[in-house]
């Protein structure tokens, strides 16, 4: 896996692993039933404590992204893409929520915010269209 751990930031390592898997599933890089490296393998690859990887895998299992086949290893769940989409939506909602809260805090009205939002949407769609 092409995951790189950033030590200097504040994000816990296990969370970085979890988020990477979220993104990989969301973008289709990891498909349902794809195998994941064992805890030990990933720990060696990233040069981190295996407990950290184990914790990440546990979290992902809880969130329904991965499951363990007894004696065979860890695999991506079939429902993972759905979970990934939900997770992605949640993150986007959170980010937008922060931006809106910031805007409201600085004194903007709801309609002003809506106007800017529409502008940004149009601009981004245009750029996406031009890139294609």
């Amino acid at each position, binding site marked *: 896996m092409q995951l790189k751990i950033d030590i200097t930031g504040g994000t816990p390592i296990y969370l970085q692993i979890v988020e990477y898997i979220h993104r990989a599933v969301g973008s289709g890089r990891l498909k349902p039933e794809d195998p994941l490296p064992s805890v030990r393998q990933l720990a060696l690859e990233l040069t981190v404590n295996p407990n950290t990887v184990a914790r990440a895998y546990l979290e992902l299992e809880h969130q329904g992204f991965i499951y363990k086949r007894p004696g065979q290893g860890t695999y991506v769940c079939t429902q993972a893409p759905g979970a990934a989409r939900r997770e992605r939506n949640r993150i986007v909602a959170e980010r937008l929520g*922060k931006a809106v809260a910031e805007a409201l805090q*600085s004194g903007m009205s709801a309609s002003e915010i809506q106007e800017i939002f529409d502008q940004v949407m149009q601009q981004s769609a245009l750029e996406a269209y031009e890139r294609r």
Partner: protein
Amino acid sequence: MNAVETDRLTRIFGRVCAVHSVTLQVPEGAVFGLLGANGAGKSTLLRLLAGHLKPTSGIASILGRPAYPPVPARWLRLGYVSQSRYLPAWMTIGQCLDFARAMRPRWDVGKVERLSRRFELPLDARIRDLSRGHYVRLQIVLALAHNPEVILLDEPTSGLDPAARRELLSMLIDEIGLRGRTVVLSSQLVEDIERMADVVAIMDGGSLVATGAPDALKGSRSRIECASPVAEADLCAVPGLVELRRGPDGAVAVTNEPDGAIQFLRARGVEAATVVAPSLEEVFFDYVNRRPQ
């Protein structure tokens, strides 16, 4: 059961208090990271744990038994990598390994061969001629060959280039993966500790100034950042406030109760407050009060 335990462990050399009333517990199977600058007391603490030094007061125990005076049989269950060089200079690597093997019944020949090959240890080289890298690798092989339950490492990566450091850490990870191994690792490099440790202990001036899992330590020094200006009075009253920092972009509250702080500020109408987790390095600087200017 705690594999390693100390209770108010103190060691004084003449007028210098190298280790001051250190109390810690390392559960079985954990990786305990000791983080501190030069002279913080990490080496002395490890030497006390290994039984090479007698405590001035307090006790240290390894695997349920007092660390001092050292019982020879304990060295069958303990591995220690020191920072100083005291392997017999006249021996070759091969002779040293053979000697250590003759002293221990539970010598894992296969493992030693594997490690020697992986480390590319020149068996005919004399120990006095070894570079730092080869020397510490030999120390590691000697410390791990008998599959000890507890491994103490004193700054094993110091003096190594980044590739060798990675190699060493990854070799330790291999070892940690095996159940029941307890590792106590000291380092000046925050990155090493962050990668490896389940529990981090920050040492400064001989004392243990903070202990906890890396995430918990970071959480204890969460920064509350607000996008828009907030009244200092509000920030001062934030629950769990540890420090109020005044920077060029305004004041930042450092708290050990980030969630409580956010709720408190929201209740005061401050919506755009976010928690920024510091890096372990920043936490370290905080605790030893030595922030680079």
